[in-house]
C-alpha cells in the first residue's frame, strides 16, 4: 500500500478553500488555516502522516483563524474553531500551533465516546503497551519522549484511547508536547529528534512539540493490548524504582484520570477493569532518563 504523504505543497494547496484532510490515528482531521506558523508546524510535525483517502468526510473540522478587529495590530490572537464553534478564549497568535494540538485533544475527549479516553501517555514494544497515567508535572511527557527515542513506539503522549468494543489500545501518535526544562533535556537526550520552535509564555510555560518518530506515525493503525499500567513521578535525585500498585487502586486512579469515564457508565467500568486485570500495575519514581529506559526495557523483556 502506498500512502501519499503530506508535503508543503499539499498543505499550501489544501489549507485554502478545501482544507487539508489527514489521518491522525483513527481520526480524519480537516484543517483550515492560513496562519504561517501552523502551516509550517504541520509540514514539520505531520510530514509522515497519510493524507486521508477521502476528502468527503472528516471526524473533526478544525479552523485556526487570526482574530479580526483592531487588536490584530498590537496584540494579534488566534481562535480555535471546531466546525464554526469556538470552545475557547482566543490565545496569542504565537501559540497557534500548540492551540491546534490542545484543541484537537479537546475535540476527541469530548466526542469520541467509542473509546474510553484516559489522560495518559501510551507506548508499545513487542505488541505490548504500557499506559502512563499522570497529572501534569509528573514528567509523563518527558518520560514518554525519552522512551519513543529508544525503540518504544509512540501511541500518544496525552490520550490513551481504549476501544469500547474490544479493549484494544488504539494509537494516536501525535507530536509530544514538552514543557520548560524538559525541552532541553530531551534535545540533549535525543539529538536527532525534530522539534518545533519554542513557544513562550503559554499557560503551561514554554512549550515545544517533538515530532513523533516516523515509524510510529506510519504504523498508526496497529493496535495493541495493555500489559502494564505505570504511574510515573519525577523525583529529583531519586533512583529509578518500580513499586507494585494494588489493582483496585490502579483502577480508581485510572478512572480519575479518564475524560469520559462518567459518560460510559457500567460499560466503561467493565472495559477499564478488564484492562487493569490484564496489566501489571506499578508506581514508578525516577530522576534519570537512562535508568528509566533500563527499567522499561526490563519490563518489555520479561515474559
Amino acid at each position: 500500500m502506498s500512502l501519499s504523504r503530506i508535503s508543503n505543497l499539499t498543505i499550501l494547496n489544501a489549507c485554502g478553500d478545501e482544507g487539508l484532510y489527514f489521518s491522525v490515528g483513527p481520526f480524519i482531521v480537516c484543517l483550515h488555516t492560513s496562519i504561517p506558523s501552523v502551516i509550517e508546524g504541520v509540514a514539520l510535525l505531520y510530514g509522515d502522516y497519510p493524507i486521508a483517502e477521502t476528502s468527503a468526510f472528516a471526524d473533526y473540522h478544525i479552523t485556526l483563524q487570526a482574530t479580526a478587529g483592531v487588536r490584530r495590530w498590537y496584540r494579534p490572537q488566534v481562535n480555535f474553531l471546531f466546525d464554526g464553534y469556538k470552545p475557547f478564549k482566543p490565545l496569542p497568535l504565537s501559540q497557534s500551533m500548540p492551540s491546534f494540538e490542545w484543541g484537537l485533544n479537546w475535540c476527541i475527549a469530548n466526542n469520541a465516546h467509542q473509546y474510553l479516553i484516559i489522560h495518559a501517555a501510551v507506548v508499545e514494544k513487542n505488541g505490548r503497551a504500557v499506559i502512563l497515567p499522570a497529572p501534569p508535572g509528573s514528567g509523563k511527557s518527558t518520560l514518554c519522549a525519552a522512551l519513543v527515542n529508544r525503540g518504544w513506539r509512540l501511541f500518544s503522549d496525552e490520550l490513551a484511547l481504549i476501544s469500547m468494543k474490544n479493549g484494544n489500545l488504539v494509537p494516536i501518535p501525535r507530536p509530544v508536547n514538552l514543557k520548560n526544562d524538559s525541552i532541553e533535556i530531551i534535545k540533549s537526550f535525543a539529538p536527532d529528534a525534530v522539534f518545533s520552535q519554542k513557544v513562550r509564555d503559554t499557560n503551561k510555560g514554554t512549550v515545544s512539540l517533538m515530532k513523533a518518530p516516523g515509524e510510529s506515525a506510519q504504523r498508526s493503525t496497529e493496535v495493541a493490548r495493555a500489559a502494564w499500567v505505570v504511574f510515573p513521578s519525577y523525583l529529583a535525585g531519586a533512583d529509578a524504582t518500580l513499586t507494585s500498585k494494588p489493582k483496585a487502586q490502579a483502577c480508581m486512579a485510572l478512572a480519575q484520570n479518564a475524560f469520559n469515564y462518567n459518560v460510559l457508565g457500567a460499560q466503561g467500568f467493565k472495559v477499564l477493569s478488564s484492562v487493569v486485570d490484564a496489566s501489571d500495575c506499578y508506581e514508578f519514581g525516577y530522576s534519570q532518563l537512562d535508568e528509566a529506559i533500563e527499567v522499561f526495557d526490563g519490563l518489555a523483556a520479561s515474559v
Partner: protein
Amino acid sequence: MIAKPCLLTQVLVKPERCLELSLREWDLVIRQARRALLLSRLASSVNESIHGLIPDLVVPHLLASKCLADKQLHIIKYEVDRIQEAFQSLDAPVVVLKGGAYVVSGLPPVHGRLFSDIDILVHKKSLDRVEEVMSSHGWMVTHVDAYDEHYYREWMHELPPMKHVRRGVVVDIHHTILPETACFHPDPKKLMADIQLVSGYENVYTLSDIDMVLHSATHLFFEGELEHGLRDLVDLDALLRHFSKDEGFWDQLVERAAEMDLMRPLYYALRYTQQMLQTPVPDVAMKASEAIGKPPAALAWLMDALFRRALMPDHPSCDDAFTPLARWVLYIRSHYLRMPFHLLIPHLVRKAIKKRFSPTQADVSKLEEN
C-alpha cells in the same frame, strides 16, 4: 424568502433517507446535527440493525453520541429522585417541566435527547421554602452578582439557577412560565390546577399533556437564543405526533391556548413544525390557531423570515446572508417581550459590557480541567 430545507431536517423527517446518503452528505448531516444538539437524536432514529449499511466512518459518531444521551437520561432520572427527596419535608409537589418531564413520563422527545438543566415549577408562595430545602440538599445559587439576583428575583419567572455543589447539575426553579414583566400572562394557578402525577413517583408531577405542548411552544417562541431552537422544535413535533392520537386533542389544544393567552406561540408552533418537520397538523387546528394567533400580515411575514432562519441548525452550511441579522433581531425581541423598554435598555447595555470583560469560555491549554 423561503429558506432551503437543510439536510438534517430532511433526514429527521425521513430517517430511511440515511441509506441513500453519500459520505459527503453524512459529513454534513453529522456537523449540522452536532451543532443543533441533535446528533444523538439522529443516532436514535437510525436502528442499530442497519449500521452495517451505512459508512464505517459514520457509525462511531452515532454510537458515541448515543452513549452521551443515554448517560444524560440516567442523570436526569437520578436528579429528579433527589429533588423529590429534598421536597419530602415540604407540602409541595415537584412539577417537572420540559426535558425532565419527557424523561419521567417516557414521552417520545426523550429518544436521544440532550439536556442542559432541569426545570421545575412551584407555587410562588412556596418559593422561599423551596429555595431553603434545595440549599440544604446541596443546590447552591452560583455565579450570581447582586444585579443578577435582582434580575431573576424581581423581573423573571424563576430563581437564579441552583447548581449542586458535588454533582454540578443545575436546577432552574420557576414560579410561572413567563416573566412577570412579559406582555402575556398565562395564569400559573391554572397550570398547577391541571398537573398530573407521574406513575412510579410519589410527589413528581408534570403539566397536563396539553399544557406541556403549550409550555414547550411558549418557551421556544419567547426564547432569544435560538442556537438550539431546532432541538426544541423537534420536541414539539414529537409531542404533537404523540398526543394527537388522543381523541379531541387538537380542539382542546386550541381552546386551552385561548384560555391561557398563548395563541400566538401556538400559532408559531403549529406553523413551523408543519413547515420544517412536516408535522401532520389538521387543517382545522391550523385555521383556528391562525384565526386568533396569527400576527398582522406584515409582522407575520417578518416573523417567517426570522424564524425560518433562526430555527435552522446554527451551522455555516445552513446560514444565508440574513441569518446573523435574524438571530440578532430575535435576541432583542425576546428581551423586549420579557421586559418593558425602560428596564430593557439598561439591562442589555449592562449585559454587553459584562460579556466583554468576563469571558466565560474555557482555556484551550487546560484540557485536564474541563
